[in-house]
């Protein structure tokens, strides 16, 4: 059951040592919304994504994601409903693509026969026994998308979703994002590729100097 407001951030601040990365960030994302997030390199986009994913606890402000307080223990309860694909692959390089997905299915409590299905959908079934570390960046990203296809998420956070992907894969990503939005969830797409993102996003925000405009 997804509430009307998926993300609610008020005055969020994050620092690293004495350097401010995010400052006074306000963001409100409702169910069904797809939001594009732009900004220059080093503006703090990845940090903001990690805060929304409940993986990084902010220093200031308050907020909820999927109804869970960012500062409370409930945030552990909603993590399995949040999917994130960063620009660094989160696969284990020694395992094959299939093993990586089977591990994910196991931890998420999903039947492992969905692994082949998802890899098929992203066109990687032939590479199921290929070591993740020996696969190209694009293949690893597609495998991560397969993982997100497999697991039902209510919030999807994508960092450079269209990078290193051909047109088919791009449409696959857009389809995945659209499906989540259609189910009442939300998605945030971080990108430098404004054209592709604005084509699928409902609205866009810009991160400048640690704050959202």
């Amino acid at each position: 059951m997804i509430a009307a407001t998926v993300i609610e951030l008020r005055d969020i601040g994050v620092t690293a040592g004495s350097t401010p990365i995010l400052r006074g960030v306000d963001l409100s994302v409702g169910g069904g919304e797809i939001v594009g997030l732009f900004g220059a390199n080093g503006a703090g986009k990845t940090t903001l994504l990690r805060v929304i994913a409940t993986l990084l606890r902010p220093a200031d402000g308050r907020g909820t994601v999927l109804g869970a307080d960012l500062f409370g223990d409930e945030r552990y309860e909603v993590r399995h409903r949040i999917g994130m694909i960063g620009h660094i692959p989160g696969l284990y390089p020694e395992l094959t693509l299939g093993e990586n997905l089977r591990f994910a299915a196991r931890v998420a409590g999903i039947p492992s026969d969905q692994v082949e299905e998802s890899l098929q959908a992203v066109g990687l079934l032939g590479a199921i026994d290929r070591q993740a570390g020996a696969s190209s960046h694009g293949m690893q990203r597609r495998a991560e998308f397969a993982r997100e296809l497999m697991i039902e998420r209510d919030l999807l956070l994508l960092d450079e979703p269209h990078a290193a992907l051909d047109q088919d894969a791009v449409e696959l990503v857009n389809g995945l994002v659209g499906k989540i939005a259609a189910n009442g969830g939300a998605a945030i797409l971080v990108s430098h590729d404004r054209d592709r993102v604005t084509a699928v996003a409902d609205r866009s925000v810009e991160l400048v100097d640690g704050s959202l405009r």
Partner: protein
Amino acid sequence: MPSEIPNRSWPWVAIGVSVAVALTLAMISPADAVQGDLVRIMYVHVPAAWLAYLAFAVTLVCSAGYLFTKNLRWDRLAASSAAIGVYFTGLAIALGMIWARPTWGVWWTWDARLTLTAIMFFVYVGYLALRRTTADPRTRAGRAAVLGIVGAVQIPLVHFSVVWWRTLHQPASILRPDGPAIQDPIMRWALLAGVIAFSVIYTSLMVKRVELHRLNDAIHLAERGEARPVAGASVAAPNLDEGARDV
């Protein structure tokens, strides 16, 4: 925010008085029948060791305090006490070695208490090293607090293991790590005065160090609030397509 550490005078007066009293008593107390004047090192060595253990106990309590309340004040207390504890431990060990050389003919002996003290020294050196590698105050406080508690909780186990180990390997009877039995009342007073003097020094150092940490954190907080120097491209006006551009 004060622009300098306030230079109150009471710590100096208290230190001066207590040290003067302790030194006097140490000097007028009788020499030991066996050790002669060497026994006077004890009046500094023993208080230093006791205060070191007290300092680490304070670190344990304040680490727990931080984890429960998430108030950085507890972290400053824990860190200050640990640093002072390391200094006192080093001092106690060094003085013990200086005393041991002419008395027993060796710089070091593997008696249980000495060995445990040396181990604790390294545990808290590690604590300080851990603090140094973490920049963000909150992260640092959390990690240091965990180590402060885990380190302290393991100490009883370390203590037991070392004591049992030493009981199996009895040191030669000529070595009496407990030191001389203290019969003379002036000696007892001298020892007590030493403990009081060191306690005063510990308290004064704590006050100064906690204040220093507080000012450091205040500077850190102020830097966070300042406008960050602007860097090139991030200033450019956003060039978005038509389509809503709102927060």
